């Protein structure tokens, strides 16, 4: 920027303009960048998606070269597959348990940390810490903590004289235990998003409310919560998209025995992504697995659609 004054001089004394001029040079740069990237996108992103869509209408098995078009048969199978229905219900249950907790804890934590004065950045660093660490490693850590006899959680319960719990071994508690882990793991992200949202609220709203004699609790519900709506919707929608695809923590924590498949006990933690993985890569039932992927995508699309509606409303403030 400091050189702006010298520019015309240099332009006069500098090299002669190249043939084709500046625009041609820019065009060369555009092509040199976009052609290889477009090829990569076409081959590794767009082609698999289209292939997946087509494959969901075929009876493709075991990566064999020929596959027959079967129309909607795979989708009809989905509706009648009791394990898929269980997986779908488990996935929705997971989301239904996780999302309210995530919003409530994330917002509560953001408010608490914003109010914590000089320890604010310390607490933010600590609560964000699990976010950066490996899902696989922390899932293994929690699997140990949840261990019925030697795990820390039950040992603490025992020391406190309380009845111990089955956690991952119990069909009724396994999914909730994994929800609790997920909350621990990603609370930091929600907290940071809400902190950014809180800082985005114009102070003058609060000052006006205080002049009007508003007290703290009504101010929270009537100013903070409505003005945080865009953040809340963002947290909610990305939360839904992520929880509908949950895979890793369940893969690690749900296998009870040495060689038992993930999803146990008694399919109580089988979610769609786990069932799809088993269908495609264990059973090699590829067409059917692709139909599951598309079905999940359809659900996610509906959610995203709802998001854009909600966001549009929130702009009308």
């Amino acid at each position, binding site marked *: 920027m400091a*050189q702006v004054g010298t520019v015309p001089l240099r332009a006069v004394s500098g090299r002669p303009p190249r043939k084709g001029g500046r625009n041609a040079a820019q065009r060369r740069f555009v092509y040199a*960048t976009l052609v290889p990237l477009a090829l990569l996108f076409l081959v590794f992103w767009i082609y698999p998606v289209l292939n997946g869509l087509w494959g969901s209408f075929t009876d493709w098995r075991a990566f064999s070269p020929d596959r027959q078009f079967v129309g909607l048969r795979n989708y009809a199978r989905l509706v009648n597959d009791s394990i898929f229905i269980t997986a779908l219900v488990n996935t929705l249950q997971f989301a239904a348990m996780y999302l309210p907790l995530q919003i409530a804890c994330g917002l509560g934590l953001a408010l608490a940390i914003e109010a914590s004065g000089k320890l604010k950045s310390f607490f933010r660093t600590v609560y*964000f810490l699990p976010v950066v660490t490996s899902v696989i*490693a922390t899932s293994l850590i929690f699997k*140990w903590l949840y261990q019925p006899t030697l795990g820390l959680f039950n040992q603490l319960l025992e020391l406190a004289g309380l009845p111990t719990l089955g956690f991952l071994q119990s069909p009724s508690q396994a999914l909730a235990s994994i929800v609790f882990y997920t909350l621990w793991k990603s609370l930091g992200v929600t907290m940071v998003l809400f902190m950014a949202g809180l800082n985005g609220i114009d102070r003058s709203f609060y000052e006006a409310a205080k002049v009007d004699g508003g007290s703290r609790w009504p101010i929270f519900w009537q100013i903070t919560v409505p003005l945080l709506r865009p953040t809340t919707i963002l947290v909610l929608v990305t939360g839904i998209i992520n929880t509908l695809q949950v895979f890793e923590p369940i893969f690690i924590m749900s296998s009870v025995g040495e060689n038992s498949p993930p999803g146990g006990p008694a399919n109580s933690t089988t979610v769609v992504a786990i069932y799809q993985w088993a269908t495609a*890569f264990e059973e090699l039932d*590829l067409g059917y697995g692709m139909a599951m992927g598309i079905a999940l995508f359809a659900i996610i699309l509906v959610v995203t659609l709802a998001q854009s509606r909600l966001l549009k409303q929130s702009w009308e403030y």
Partner: protein
Amino acid sequence: MTSRSTQAVAGHAVGPASALAGGRTPLAAAEEPALARRRRPAPTRYLLWLLLGLGSVAMIGPFYWMAITSLKPRQELLAFPPTWWPEAFTLDHWRSLNDLTTGSFPVFFRNSLFVTTSITLLTLLTSAAAGYVFAKMDFPGRDRLFWVVLSMMMIPFTVSIIPSYALMSRLGWINTYWALIVPVAVNPFGIFLMRQFISSIPSDLLDAARIDGASEFGIFCRIVIPLSQAALAALAILTFIAQWDNFLWPLVVLNEPDLYTLPLGLAQFRGRVGTDVGATAAGSLVSVIPVLVVYAFAQRKFIEGIALSGLKG
């Protein structure tokens, strides 16, 4: 419908990205509670600290528990009540990582480092170049093409995992790192992030350099890249963390223990947590400690980077 929702995402991410350009983020902006501090009675503040402190124990506790578990001898791991600090230290669990039934941790670590670093460097390069092109170059169909890139962010992995595997198998890339690296060398989110950021670089600056006789490549290397450092750092951290932890795709395309990355090597402990927890703990720490060390030095960058991507983490 999809375009509207991507705009919504765009609208969100623009804020932090442009704030990054200003050097100060919304996170850093609030030293304001000074006002609130004077008004708030002290006992409430201490109570808040106490509660947040207890929560902090819950956040850090599992890592501490893992660390001491990896150092306790076998009998002590079975003790009730548990010991809060190892009575006898042993490095046996750590030594056992060198020679597992499948693979060894030094190899997993090296593999992970290689794959993750390659992907991160490639992502930075392609995202910066494409971001620059979409932000500052004029060519027909630019906006439509950018929309196509954005729409790819919306498609979940469940749709493409099976056909992607089939493609890898046709290319002969099963059990090679090509399968891990090449497909993610282009990253829609990275392109989006860099485009938003590079848009804020004044075009006059680039034109001045052009008049100065700089080549397009020279402008990209000597002006655009240095001025985008903040965004590149955020993208590097995001990509590194995501890939260091990537599990499902490597699980599908790699089945030779010599090629395993850390998450795959670790996952073999999932059925052995109850019987061989010492090694499980030590292995988990191998994958967690390097990230924690970097996090300790650059935590603000980490938080900014992950907050930028919404709930990606």
